[in-house]
């Protein structure tokens, strides 16, 4: 049976105070299990990034509770949250956010260092991770010498540093052409299935729906629809579980 990785219990996030408050996330309850590739879609401003920030422990919910492997994290303080992120979460961004002064290898190494893996071991693991995302030949390239797709692969390798059980990606294909973008999404899908990881991805691209196990749709801060993949629904109706 798949373990539950992340639980959101009526989580809300309100920005600002007084007259200018924005309710970005409104009473969202979710239960996400390992090994699944989940898409989050929805119009601009619907609260997708905010939800991702909450799940990634970069923001604290205004209301509600958040559990990571059954530990409540919504109450933890600023000193503990970095430790949680280090251990459980890998981030992938639309704009890659690689360190321009560091090579592909060094970018991944840095993340490994942050997770307590240092020295030669870090170097070796970084090379393995880059090979895993198909960049074994580009180890010593600086980000400026890599294509968009290659940069996102480096970012993926970096997110995989320390083997976190959760990958959170916010429009990782937003800066890429559709073919390259699809390759990245295929890689993400594979990373969830073969390594039993929860991959949660925000996207605007409906063409990659077929790759996901589940699609959530958000509107005005709430999850308004939850579609499972067809085969899974069929399986569910036969009374089986994945």
């Amino acid at each position: 049976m798949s373990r539950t990785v992340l639980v959101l219990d009526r989580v809300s996030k309100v920005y600002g105070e007084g007259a200018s408050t924005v309710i970005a996330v409104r009473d969202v309850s979710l239960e996400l299990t390992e090994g699944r590739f989940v898409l989050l879609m929805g119009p601009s401003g619907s609260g997708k990034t905010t939800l991702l920030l909450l799940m990634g422990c970069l923001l604290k919910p205004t209301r509600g509770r958040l559990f990571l492997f059954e530990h409540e994290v919504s109450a933890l303080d600023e000193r503990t949250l970095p430790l949680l992120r280090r251990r459980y979460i890998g981030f992938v961004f639309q704009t890659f956010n690689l360190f321009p002064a560091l090579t592909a290898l060094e970018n991944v190494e840095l993340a490994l260092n942050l997770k307590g893996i240092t020295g030669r071991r870090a170097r070796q693991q970084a090379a393995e991770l880059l090979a895993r995302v198909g960049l074994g030949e580009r180890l010593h390239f600086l980000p400026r010498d890599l294509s968009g797709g290659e940069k996102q692969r480096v970012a993926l390798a970096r997110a995989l540093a320390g083997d976190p059980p959760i990958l959170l990606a916010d429009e990782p294909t937003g800066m890429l052409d559709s073919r390259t973008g699809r390759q990245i999404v295929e890689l993400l899908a594979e990373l969830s299935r073969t390594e039993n990881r929860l991959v949660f991805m925000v996207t605007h691209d409906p063409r990659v729906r077929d790759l996901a196990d589940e699609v959530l749709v958000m509107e005005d801060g709430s999850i308004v629809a939850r579609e499972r993949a067809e085969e899974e629904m069929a399986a569910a109706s036969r009374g089986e579980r994945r």
Partner: protein
Amino acid sequence: MILREEESAWQAEEFKATMVSLAKKNLFHDRVRFLVALIGIQFAVVLMTLQIGFLLKFMTNASVLIDHIEADLWITAKNLKNFDFGLPFSEQKLYEARRAPGVLWAERFLMGFSYWKMPDGGQETIQVIGFNPETRIGAPWDIVEGDLTDVKYFNQIFIDEADRARLGFPRVGDEVEIIGQRARIAGITRGAKSFTGSPFVFTSFKNALKLSFIPPGQTVYILVKVAPGYAVEEVKQYLAETLTGVDVYTKREFSWKSRRYWLLVTGAGIALLSTALLGLLIGTIIVGQTIYASTIDHLREFGTLKAIGASNADLYRIIIAQALIVALIGYATGMLLSRIFLHVARRAGLEAYLPPEVLLAIFGLTVLMCVSASIISIYKITKLDPALVFRS
């Protein structure tokens, strides 16, 4: 709970080294900005070094005779302001001092303002120094030309090589006129330049009485050597209590009193010191601005680091490491530049005095400057919006 084991990795030395190496790489990546910060620090270092060096040299001038004379104690007229403003008092005190326990020897020593007649008919203010030629206590210490025993004879004088131009380029053997009296130059000294700018003229105590306005039977200073086995402080105490109408200082006290006078009372030192402080301030602003601008430029990277698990403390470490790296390189190159400037200055006759503890202090100030310059950047990091890295 679940996080215990993580904490040890978080504290690892190697991990700190990673942050420092990232700081270094970021720094050298923005080359122009790095150079601007360096120039800011170099500016501050050079300005501080030169100003403080000249100031200290200036100050040693104010006590040059005191520092070179091997007396332990100086007996002076009451409430003297500094060495150059010496006032006469009765020679009688000399004999009283010699009778005091713990006094190995005591000598008369004269310092009096006087006038030197220039070849063009004008007058130059001079400071006549009179010492005992038999014991040579208080005599000039570095003789370039001439025989010091000559000062025993009638109005034979020594002048310093640094003052020759000021006195109209007299040579050894030349006859000159001092307050209507004929004097002859018997030799040349080195390193005996007065702080007031009025040239020192060295001669015997007896000649000095005639060549200055000090009345006979008076002295300006009494130099005292403390006998072995006696504490300087105790002998000083005894003399101060038994001799009336005079003050007694240790060599250090009198030296510092003379320096401090010119430093504080006249404001000359204040002006120099404030230039040095200005350098420090401008340096801080330039370094602060470049580090701040660099932080703003790298905000996305700091945000990314936070997202992948860095704590605020880690980010501060990067900023502080950057500040320290520029401080170190800026100090080293700034000192190199200072050496070049000092070399040029020395050729122009301007000396500096920079003991190791001062160089260390300037290094300390440079580090302090760079670290305080990064405080705004650190503040900026604490306010970092986590969503920043998710925006395009």
